[in-house]
């Protein structure tokens, strides 16, 4: 199990489009992926769009990403990359 801290940097936060990309990406990995808000400990399954949307993570929200499973390194790198890239709102989409 590995974990990493990430910050929501894109302007609109984890809204429908960003959430859809995140869920697609997370679902392409075998590892279980959890996101937890550092401020209020709300948590979400990164493979469930309804759960991710309910995190209500706006710009600047700090999160902990926790991956657990065979490809946990690949999974967490991919997800952190997506957050760092501002969810492709600037371009470059990862294949889901």
């Amino acid at each position, binding site marked *: 199990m590995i974990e990493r801290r990430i910050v929501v940097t894109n*302007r*609109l*936060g984890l*809204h*429908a*489009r960003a*959430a*859809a990309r995140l*869920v*697609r990406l997370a*679902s392409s990995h075998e590892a279980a992926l959890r996101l937890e808000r550092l401020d209020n400990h709300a948590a979400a*399954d990164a*493979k*469930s*769009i*309804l*759960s991710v*949307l*309910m995190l*209500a993570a*706006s710009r600047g929200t700090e999160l902990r990403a926790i991956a657990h499973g065979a490809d946990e390194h690949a999974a967490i790198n991919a997800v952190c990359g997506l957050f760092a890239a501002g969810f492709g*709102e*600037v*371009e470059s989409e990862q294949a889901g």
Partner: protein
Amino acid sequence: MNKQVRKHVTEERWHGLGVSDGRVVGRVLRIHNGARQVYRATLDDADVERECRRFRAAVRAARGELLAIKTRAEKELGADHAYIFDAHILMLEDRKLIDEIESFIRLENANAEWAVKVAVDRLLAVYAEIKDDYLRARGSDIEDVSQRIMAALSGDSASYRKLTRDAVIVATDLPPSRVAELDIAHARAFATDAGGWTSHTAIIARGLGIPAVVALRDLHDQARTGDVIIVDARTGDVILHPTEETIASYRALQTTDRPPVSTRLAQAENDAAEPPPTFRTLDGTEIVLRANVELPAEFGNVRKFRARGIGLYRSEFLLTGGGRVPSEEAQCQAYIDVAQSAGDGGATVRLFDLGGDKVGTGTAASERNPALGLRAIRFGLTHGEILRTQVRAILRAAAQVSGLSIVLPMIADAHDVRSARAIINQEMANLEGEGIEARAVPVGAMIEVPSAVWMAGQLAHEVDFFSLGTNDLVQYLLAVDRGNEAVSHWFRSLHPAVLHSIRSALRAAQSAGIPAMVCGEMAATPAYAVMLIGLGATELSMNATAIPRVSRVISGINIDDARTIAGKCLGCPTADDVEEIVRVEYSARWPHLFSPESLPPPKTEE
């Protein structure tokens, strides 16, 4: 679900608001988008597994539909709007939702419909607690998805993607997500219970050049798929189960109308290779005709109908994808596309003309009076980052394509213009400082608020051109809400106050030596277009599909006649008097151009 065969049918009539042009005899295609009544049933234990399978099959069917819709939406509305369907697809794939529904079916021996309703209601209750406005609004996406499952469960899934050739779409309302799944290119007409002149249904219908009548109250309840229906957008009449005589009389009217859209499109396509023609009145005065454009699906019409570029690009369409403001890069590309489809005639981009309710800023406190509220340029100046992103995108696009200009919506006076220009200049300087290629563009003002008409003389020295938005001008000048049927009798485009306002704005532009263009819906109606020309307009912008009929009339009139008639109308005390002059003078001078029904009807009452 339970479709009763109705043996005796009598002709039923509705009167609504016609929001486009033309009339059609066709067959109803009824589209569900309201909430359905859901009942609880208790299943025998033996039936539970079968119910789960039925539910899973419905989810698969719904998902298949959404995948097809998404592909179509990407093509017709642009990728930026299709992403919302991706979110819907993921909701259908979401184990959290699917498992909860299945376990409810098992635990409660419930029917699938009831299980879906309970699970979705629970989710919606959680969403309702979310503080962020935009995210809370995602509840409507969940509802949309649940209704799609319900439709699949009841078996009447969205087979309406393959429209028959005579399909008249009947719905309570047509939000963009519903429109996106329709084979809209084949729809013959729209008839909706809700909506107004500026609703999406109306805009799309005008873009497609098909009849649409809105504000029909309960038509959707009464109509059944397959019923014969007449939709007359010219009068706002809708007739269900018309008698043979009624149909015959409408068919007779249709033959005197312009040819149907398909023929016109084919004809226009043949001509598309030629450059846009110059339209002139009989005496040789040139009248420039441009296109109003919103949907990417309409871009092709600019060339098809031989418009001199795009006089009005309603950029709000870029925001209809669920409240997300597209990135600077995405917008820049969109404006390049707009300019390229406009060709040499250029394209005028109207900055976002809407209020906080349409943009996911989280500031959408409901306003008591949105038409007079924080919208258009006021919204842009208040939410500087949205305005700046748009301006930067336009300036960057202008470095790559020629002919772009900006028009500022809802300008009340020179102060609005100066504030907006200051931001445009700052962003131009910023881009230069950042080493990003950009080019300054002409900046114009929409003249649509009465104060701007009064101040037009001064305003004309602060901008590069005027653009007269007649829809809003009429609404603000006469204090009449265009979408409110109760006051529709007071909405008079030919009111003398409107004519005076248009003339004085055009004169102000002329004496300051700047171009002025009239770009409201008035320009698309031949009788009104002639009036505008008589008032001094030489540039009109309209839905491209209206160009053939307007240009035909222009080439048959003398400008002096148009001026004489307009002059008489300016002296009238009421709209009725103006309409009477128009009716009498037009039919006397140009009987070959104006059939009696293309003119204001004679006043029989009041």
